[in-house]
């Protein structure tokens, strides 16, 4: 029975996440939010929508409320995908591979701890850290513009994070160039699903081995609030799709733990 206090070490892991990965996540999220919102508030884009809203609603308050609903929807539907992907990329980049490449594993794992326990916990802590950062950013957005943080939104973000981060965790446990591998895996899965997803050829069934990342937007649209202009309401969260994506990430996470259990740490 190991005497190590890995659980208590979670505080250090959270601190490391916030300092080394949370800050870049905030910077990237803020920049994308700025770009997205400056596009939405661009007079050439804003005025035609405001005209429609003024024609549809009687009072200035109602027009303003509808405008903010539109802003929230446009903002979330355009930024969530990038935010969760980049957040997962930052949170998982080198989570295992860096320690192996830079030799930090040598002192760590001479202590009575198992790599699978240590990194398995790091994954969970980084997930919690990402959710903390996201929630704070969402609350700040709400304080400045209009409230957007809902339970549904947080659940969708948390589960979509697992979909990406699980894959990244496995890649980091198994390969050196994990961030590059994650981008390659995400792009490949999206392209192949887009190109061959509708095919009835038996080989197309192999696509089910890849995560359906091309449909991630369906999840984000479902939690972006009702669109004021244009397409019809997307309805509720597509739970089956979300379960598929999250389940894929969870399986990859578990596979990563198995790799860590049996793979030797030294890089030759």
């Amino acid at each position, binding site marked *: 029975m190991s005497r190590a206090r890995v659980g208590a070490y979670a505080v*250090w892991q959270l601190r490391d996440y916030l300092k080394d990965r949370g800050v870049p996540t905030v910077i990237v999220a803020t920049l994308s939010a700025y770009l997205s919102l400056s596009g939405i508030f661009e007079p050439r884009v804003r005025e035609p929508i405001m005209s429609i809203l003024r024609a549809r609603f009687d009072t200035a308050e109602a027009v303003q409320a509808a405008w903010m609903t539109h802003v929230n929807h446009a903002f979330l539907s355009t930024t969530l995908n990038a935010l969760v992907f980049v957040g997962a990329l930052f949170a998982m980049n080198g989570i295992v591979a860096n320690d192996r490449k830079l030799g930090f594993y040598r002192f760590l794992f*001479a202590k009575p701890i*198992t790599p699978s326990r240590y990194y398995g916990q790091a994954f969970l802590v980084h997930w919690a850290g990402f959710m903390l950062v996201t929630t704070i950013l969402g609350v700040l957005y709400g304080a400045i513009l209009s409230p957007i943080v809902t339970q549904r939104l947080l659940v969708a973000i948390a589960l979509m994070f697992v979909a990406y981060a699980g894959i990244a965790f496995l890649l980091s446990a198994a390969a050196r160039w994990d961030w590059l591998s994650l981008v390659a895996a995400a792009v490949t899965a999206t392209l192949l699903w887009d190109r061959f997803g509708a095919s009835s050829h038996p080989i197309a069934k192999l696509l089910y081995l890849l995560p359906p990342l091309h449909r991630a937007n369906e999840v984000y649209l479902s939690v972006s609030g009702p669109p004021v202009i244009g397409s019809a309401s997307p309805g509720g969260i597509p739970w089956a799709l979300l379960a598929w994506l999250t389940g894929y990430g969870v399986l990859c996470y578990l596979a990563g733990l198995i790799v860590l259990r049996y793979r030797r740490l030294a890089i030759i």
Partner: protein
Amino acid sequence: MIAFDHVGKRYRSLFGREVRALDDFSIELHAGEVFGVAGPNGAGKSTLISLLLGYLGPSEGTIRVGGLDPRRYAETHGISYLSELVHIPPAWRADEALERYALLAGLSSPARDARVDEVIEWMGLGEHRSKRVKQLSKGNLQRLGLAQALLVEERVIVLDEPTHGLDPVWTQRFRDVVNALRRDDRVILIASHNLDELARLADRVAIIDHGRLQRVVDVRGAVEPDGRDRTPYRIALARGAELVRETFPNAREMGLGEYQLDGLTLDEVNVGLAALLARGALVTMVYPVHSMLEQQFREAVGTGRGTS
């Protein structure tokens, strides 16, 4: 306590070429001993240590530490380990690094804080404790590495090039540290290129070359070799140099007042020295040109190769 049984380790390069880092290596290390490992560059010492910590798996043979697979042993009991190059995240502060490692080693507060302060004091890192790892000099980084290894003094201690980068004062202090760590139920393994160091600290020294165990030298029970293999001694005198040739007819003058005595037993050297002193000579220094271990090393791996 530690047993290597016909252990081999092969690496395969990108182009499929096979490299044998360790070959048919068998040895047992017993509790209570300080065991040295010496060998030229690329002899297989680093591979041996990675295998001992379970960071690598053997291609052939078995390794047991306390009866367990090495990785399982490290995960259950921990190993006090100092690697040849000290790898600690550069942004960590020195005391923060020790705090983290102490937590992972299983120390709970407030004993943890006390132990961290203790090793900082022991390793003379007090004035550097708030510095980032990247700001530490090579010697201080090495001491920090040693400090983290000694946070919890485990039953297995592995020190890879422990005096690398230490100044003479700390090299001497390190010897005191190792002597303080000696315990009947503990095995200490030291890999070093410094044969003099190993001769002072270790009970036995394994000399490895080309991945094979060449010989194990029993440092404490060493027997003086015969004839031309005897270690030459050098003496230096402040007074009575003219008496040296009369006492040691084969003495060779080496300059700076030093003479080399070849092919003599330790007894013969002592008898001669006594005669010199009796005749009023003032001897300032007597030392063996090669230590017994160095001589064994030269025989085992040849003379033209450096150690690592």
